[in-house]
C-alpha cells in the first residue's frame, strides 16, 4: 500500500502536494490530517505548517480488471476490457480479436472466466459483488435466443401435452426462461435436478 506524508501552508496545500508525489487524484485516496497547521500572526509569527498522511486506497476493481486481462491475454493479444459498475453489479465488457474462442460453446468459457473473476473480487473486497463478463453483446444475444427457445418449447409442451425438459443451464439462464414464460397461462415452469445439472421443465397446465 502506497502512502505519503506531506506538509503545506494549509491542509488543502498539503493534500495537493501529496497527490502530486503519489501521482494520483483525490477520489482514489484516504486523507488523514495529522496537524491542521496555524496561520499565525500576520502570517509571520507562530505559523505552523499543516501535515497530512495520504494513503492510496486499494482499488479492488482495478486489481481484478488486471486479473481478467491476464487471463484473456492467454487467448488473444488484442482484447479490450471496459468496466462499468451499477450498484453491486460489476460488468466487464470484452471486445477485440478471437472473441468466439473466449465465449466458448454456449458461453461456457465466458461463464468460467466470469466465475473466476467473481471469486477473486469477493475474496479481495469486504462488500459482495455480482460480476458479469460480457463479450460483444453475447449476453443480450443469448437472452434473445433463450426467449425464442422458451416460447417454441412452450408451444410444443402444449401441443403434445407432456413435460418438456431443457438442457442444464446456469441459474441466470434458467431465470430468463422462467420470466419469459411467466405470463403464459397454458404452461407452468419449474427447475429440476441439482447443480450443475439443474434444468428447466415446462409442463402444460391441465384445466
Amino acid at each position: 500500500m502506497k502512502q505519503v506524508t506531506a506538509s503545506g501552508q494549509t491542509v488543502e496545500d498539503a493534500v495537493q502536494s501529496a497527490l502530486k508525489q503519489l501521482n494520483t487524484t483525490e477520489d482514489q485516496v484516504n486523507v488523514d490530517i495529522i496537524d491542521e497547521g496555524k496561520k499565525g500572526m500576520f502570517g509571520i509569527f507562530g505559523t505552523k505548517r499543516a501535515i497530512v498522511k495520504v494513503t492510496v486506497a486499494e482499488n479492488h476493481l482495478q486489481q481484478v480488471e488486471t486479473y481478467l486481462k491476464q487471463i484473456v491475454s492467454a487467448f488473444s493479444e488484442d482484447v479490450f476490457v471496459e468496466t462499468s459498475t451499477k450498484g453491486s453489479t460489476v460488468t466487464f465488457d470484452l471486445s477485440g480479436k478471437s472473441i468466439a474462442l473466449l465465449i466458448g460453446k454456449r458461453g461456457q468459457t465466458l461463464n468460467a472466466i466470469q466465475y473466476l473473476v467473481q471469486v477473486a473480487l469477493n475474496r479481495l473486497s469486504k462488500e459482495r459483488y455480482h460480476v458479469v463478463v460480457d463479450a460483444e453483446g453475447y449476453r443480450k444475444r443469448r437472452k434473445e435466443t433463450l426467449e425464442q427457445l422458451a416460447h417454441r418449447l412452450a408451444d410444443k409442451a402444449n401441443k403434445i401435452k407432456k413435460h418438456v425438459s431443457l438442457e442444464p443451464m446456469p441459474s441466470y439462464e434458467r431465470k430468463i426462461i422462467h420470466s419469459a414464460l411467466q405470463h403464459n397461462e397454458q404452461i407452468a415452469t419449474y427447475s429440476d435436478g441439482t447443480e450443475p445439472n439443474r434444468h428447466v421443465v415446462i409442463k402444460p397446465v391441465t384445466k
Partner: protein
Amino acid sequence: MKALIQTIVEPLVDHPEEIQVNVKEESGKMIYHLTVHPEDVGKVIGKNGRIAKVIRTVVYAAGSDTKKRIYLDIM
C-alpha cells in the same frame, strides 16, 4: 500455459508463493500438475469442485489451438 495456470490460481489462494505447476509430457498429451499450500486446496477445488471445473474449462479452452491434449491435475 504454465503462466496462465499460475495467474488464474494466484488471487484465489492465501499462499500464492506456494503455487507449483509441474509439466509432464506423455504420448500426445501434456499433463500440468498443480500443487498449492495444504490450506488452499479447498479454495482451488471449491464447492462441489466448481472452481476446479472452471479452471479446467479456461485452461483447456486456452490450449485448444495446440495440437496436444492438455490435462490439468490438481494436487
